[in-house]
């Protein structure tokens, strides 16, 4: 059973979103996603300032086997990419909800994270994908 923290929001494409105190959003991929991808060996994060639209590819995570796009859960401007992942991409495997975060962005609208799933809804989504 994969780990789905209750205090985060989720997308169908297996990204998680954490709302930080200053209103920016921290984004990563879920435990389920990192497990499905396997050992990560390369992560490409976006440059600061880049504008992304919801649903756009905003990062790439590569396991030994394949490259996968990470999609922006909401529209906004990138405030920071996780520089630690350049040398230690495996942080996404070992700590997907913590040190393995991918990027932070300032959402376009104040209610930027509306429309994302709760932990319960994401757990149901995983069940429906598995069946």
């Amino acid at each position: 059973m994969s780990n789905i923290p209750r205090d985060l929001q989720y997308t169908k494409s297996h990204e998680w979103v954490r709302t930080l105190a200053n209103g920016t959003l921290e984004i990563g991929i879920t435990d389920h996603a990192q497990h499905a991808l396997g050992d990560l060996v390369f992560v490409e994060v976006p440059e600061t300032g880049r504008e992304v639209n919801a649903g756009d590819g905003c990062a790439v995570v590569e396991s030994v086997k394949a490259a996968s796009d990470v999609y922006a859960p909401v529209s906004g401007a990138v405030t920071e990419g996780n520089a630690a992942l350049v040398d230690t991409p495996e942080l996404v495997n070992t700590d997907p909800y913590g040190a393995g975060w991918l990027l932070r962005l300032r959402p376009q609208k104040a209610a930027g994270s509306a429309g994302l799933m709760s932990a319960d809804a994401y757990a149901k989504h995983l069940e429906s994908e598995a069946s």
Partner: protein
Amino acid sequence: MGLKTPLYARHVEMGARIVDFGGWDMPVNYGSQIEEHHAVRRDAGMFDVSHMCVADLRGARVRAFLRQLLANDVARLQSPGKALYSCMLRADAGILDDLIVYFLSESWFRMVVNAGTRDKDLDWIRQHAAAFEVAVTERKDLAMIAVQGPKAREKAATRIPAAHRAAALELGTFVGAECGDLFIARTGYTGEDGWEVMLPAERAVAMWNAWSEAGIKPCGLGARDTLRLEAGMNLYGSDMNEATHPLESGLAWTIAWEPAERDFVGRAALAKVKAQGSARKLVGVLLEDRGVLRSHQKVITAGGDGEMTSGTFSPTLERSIGLARVPAGTGAQVQVDIRGKLLAARVVKPPFVRNGRPLVS
């Protein structure tokens, strides 16, 4: 629901992640592909390769038949058990498959061909065998397990019948022998020492468990792919196929041109290519920038574009490596287009790693 090997249920019990591989439900890893890779480079790992197709060819004229069918020459096989790697070509020299053939007796050879090509291969072989009165029997009753790594033979030998242990450990490189109901061959697809063992399908689970207890780590097809690529070995369907010929696939060494009168299938077409000089070649590529090479990425060279045919992250070298088909005149430096960025890469001669040691830096 895909095809399943006799070990399928055991893989699931051992926590394997199962993926479709050419119609077969196969383990891609049992947790960490990188750990499995290192186990084979440093100690011992094992792979279920029962999806591959084993075929026995029997008949008084089987040697003459194979000298016509294969681009390498089975006349080189003089002592029983000796194996040969060869391409099987179409008349236009396109590669139908790559395979290993064992000489077992003057009336019995054994072939191991790829899983994904089994039906077309068997059709092709039978079509050409008729004139030589050679009978082709697919050995669906056999499973196959590859044990690979510097400690693989030593560990595996502890769990085979004592009566066969010494003989099995004495097998030379690229030689196989029947050891009771096991057929043990000192071959592999990893660049390490080891065996590929064929055995009755109903004994596969017991053998797998015994070897697991002996400290041989179960490994999935993911590690098998990174190991073969580090070893500079081609994968059929990725690095070559029916639209490519051996001289542009790094396989010139497998073509037996002598004796000149041996008229193997594809010879005339391939001789023409050889006379003109192949326009393309298959090379090793080492990425100098950060990123991961993958098949189908565009390779930019001074003499025109080429294409990556395989690419991965090399766990041994901790950087990305691959194989690419490029214009014949390509020099030492190329660029690879990865998601629109042109990254620097160096052309090198495979293998990248052999017997645990990096050969490039």
